C-alpha cells in the first residue's frame, strides 16, 4: 500500500532537504497497475516501527506523498555515493548499482538504471556496504536535537537575563523536570556529594528520551518516527551508560564485581561470573526495556487502528462500527503512552544514575 512512484525532477536536493521540510515529492503516475491488494496489518505496523529511506506522509488516491531522504552509502569497491532516495522510485528502480529491498539498500551487479526486479543482487558487495543514509529515524533524530537545543538554549538564556526572578513560560515548564532529575534521580541515587558531575549526562538522556518518546506519539511529520523504540538508538544510549560506569568505577566497585568481600572462595567461583555477567547485563536490560516499551506502545496503538481497515474490508459498515471502538482504544492508548513516555525516560535515567551511584560508592564498613 505504500508503493508508488516519485517524480524524477526532485533529485539530489540534499541541502534543501536539510533546511526545509517542504521538500515533498509528489507521485504523479503509478507505473505498475494497481492490483487489488489486501490490507496487511502486520506489514503496516512493521513499516511504521521500522526505519525507512523516505518519509511516507500520506496517499492521495493511489499517489503516495513522501519526503525523499538522502542516501549516503560507502563501499570500499565503489566508494562514496550520495543521492536522494527518490532515485529508487519507491524501490521500483535501481540507481548507481543499488536498489531498495524491504527498505534496505542492497548492491546489484548492474550499475545502470533499470527495473529493480530484473537486477541481480550482489550478496558479497551488500555484506560489505556501509550505510550512513539519513533515514527516517536519523531525520527524526536531527529534528529532535534541533528541538531540544532550541528549548534548552532559549530557557538557559532566560536564566541568564533574568537571574533571581521567578521562572516564566518555557522556563517554568522545564524547571520542575530539571529539579526532579536533580533531586529525585541524581541526588537520591548517586548521593549528595558526587551527583553534580553526572548531571549533564542524566539531564541530556532524560530529555532526549522524553522528547523523542513524545514526538513518537505525534502521528504526522516530523513526529511519528519510532526513534526511542529503535534498538540502534537504545543500544547507543546503553553503551554510553556502560562506558561511563566502567570508567568511573572505583576500587570498591570492582572488588565487589571480582571478589565480593566476606564471601568464601567456593561461593566466589559461582558468584564472580554472575557479577561479571551483571556488568554487561545492566546496560543490556536498559537497551531492551526502552526499545520494547516504546515499540510495544506503537504496535498496540497501530493494531487498534488497523482493526478499522480489517473490519472495513469485510464490510464498510463493520469498519465504521469498529472505528468508534478503535478510536476510543487508540485515545486510551495515547494517554497511556504519555505516561509511558515519561516513565521510560525516568526509568532509564534513574537506572543509569543508580549504576553510577554503585560504581562511585565508597567503602563504608
Amino acid at each position: 500500500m505504500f508503493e508508488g512512484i516519485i517524480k524524477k525532477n526532485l533529485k539530489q536536493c540534499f541541502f534543501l532537504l536539510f533546511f526545509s521540510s517542504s521538500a515533498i515529492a509528489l507521485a504523479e503516475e503509478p507505473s505498475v497497475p494497481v492490483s487489488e491488494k489486501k490490507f496487511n496489518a502486520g506489514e503496516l505496523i512493521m513499516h511504521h516501527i521500522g526505519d525507512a529511506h523516505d518519509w511516507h506522509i500520506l496517499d492521495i488516491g493511489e499517489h503516495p506523498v513522501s519526503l525523499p531522504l538522502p542516501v549516503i552509502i560507502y563501499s570500499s569497491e565503489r566508494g562514496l555515493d550520495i543521492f536522494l532516495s527518490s532515485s529508487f522510485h519507491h524501490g521500483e528502480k535501481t540507481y548507481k548499482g543499488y536498489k531498495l529491498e524491504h527498505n534496505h539498500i542492497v548492491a546489484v551487479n548492474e550499475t545502470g538504471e533499470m527495473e529493480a526486479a530484473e537486477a541481480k543482487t550482489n550478496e558479497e558487495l551488500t555484506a560489505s556496504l556501509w550505510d550512513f543514509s539519513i533515514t527516517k529515524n536519523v531525520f527524526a533524530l536531527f529534528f529532535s536535537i534541533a528541538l531540544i537545543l532550541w528549548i534548552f538554549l532559549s530557557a538557559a538564556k532566560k536564566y541568564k537575563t533574568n537571574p533571581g526572578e521567578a521562572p516564566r513560560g518555557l522556563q517554568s515548564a522545564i524547571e520542575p523536570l530539571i529539579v526532579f532529575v536533580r533531586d529525585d534521580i541524581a541526588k537520591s541515587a548517586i548521593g549528595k556529594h558526587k551527583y553534580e558531575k553526572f548531571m549533564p549526562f542524566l539531564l541530556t538522556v532524560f530529555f532526549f528520551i522524553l522528547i523523542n518518546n513524545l514526538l513518537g506519539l505525534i502521528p504526522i511529520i516530523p513526529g511519528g518516527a519510532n526513534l526511542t523504540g529503535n534498538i540502534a538508538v537504545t543500544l547507543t544510549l546503553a553503551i554510553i551508560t556502560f562506558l561511563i560506569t566502567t570508567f568511573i568505577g572505583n576500587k570498591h566497585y570492582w572488588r565487589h564485581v571480582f571478589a565480593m568481600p566476606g564471601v568464601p572462595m567456593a561461593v566466589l567461583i559461582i558468584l564472580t561470573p554472575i557479577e561479571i555477567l551483571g556488568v554487561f547485563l545492566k546496560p543490556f536490560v536498559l537497551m531492551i526495556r526502552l526499545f520494547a516499551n516504546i515499540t510495544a506502545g506503537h504496535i498496540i496503538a497501530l493494531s487498534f487502528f488497523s482493526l478499522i481497515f480489517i473490519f472495513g474490508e469485510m464490510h464498510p459498515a463493520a469498519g465504521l462500527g469498529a472505528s468508534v471502538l478503535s478510536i476510543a482504544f487508540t485515545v486510551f492508548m495515547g494517554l497511556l503512552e504519555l505516561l509511558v513516555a515519561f516513565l521510560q525516560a525516568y526509568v532509564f535515567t534513574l537506572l543509569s544514575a543508580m549504576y553510577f551511584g554503585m560504581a562511585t560508592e565508597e567503602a563504608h564498613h
Partner: protein
Amino acid sequence: MELVKPAIGLMFWMLVSFGIILFILKKFAWKPILSALKSREESIQKALDDASSARLEMANFKNESERIINQAKIERDNIIKEARDAKDSIVSEAKTKAKEEAEKIMRAARESINNEKMAAITELKNQVAGLSITIAEKIIKEELSSGEKHKTLIHTFLDEVKLN
C-alpha cells in the same frame, strides 16, 4: 529479527548527535540553569533565615524594651520612696533638734537658777555669819568676863552655823 538488528548508520548518527547535544547543553544550558537554580535556592533559604532571625531579634527587642520599662518603673518607685524617706527623716531630725535645743535651754535655765540659788544661799550664809559675828561681838562686849563658858558657847554657835 529485523527489529532487533541495530543499524550501524543510525548508531553512528546517534552517537555523533548525542555527543554534540551533550556537549552543547552541558556548556550552554545545564551549567547556567543548574547554577541559577542553586543560587536561587540559596537566596530563598537566606531570605527565610533572615526572616526568622529578624523575628527572633524583634522578640528580643520586645523583651528588652519590657525589661527597660519595668526597670524604669522600679527606679521611679525607689526615687519616690527615697524622697518620702528623706522628707520624713528631715522632719524628724528637725523635731529632735528642736527638742534638744529646748532641753538645752531648759537645762541652762535650770543651772543658772541653781547657781543663783547657791549664790543666794552663800550670800545668806555670809550675811547670817556676819550677823552672828555682830551678835557675837555684842554678846562678847557684854559678857567678856565669863571666860571659858563664853568660849564654849561661841563654838557651839559656830558649829550650829556651819551645819547649816
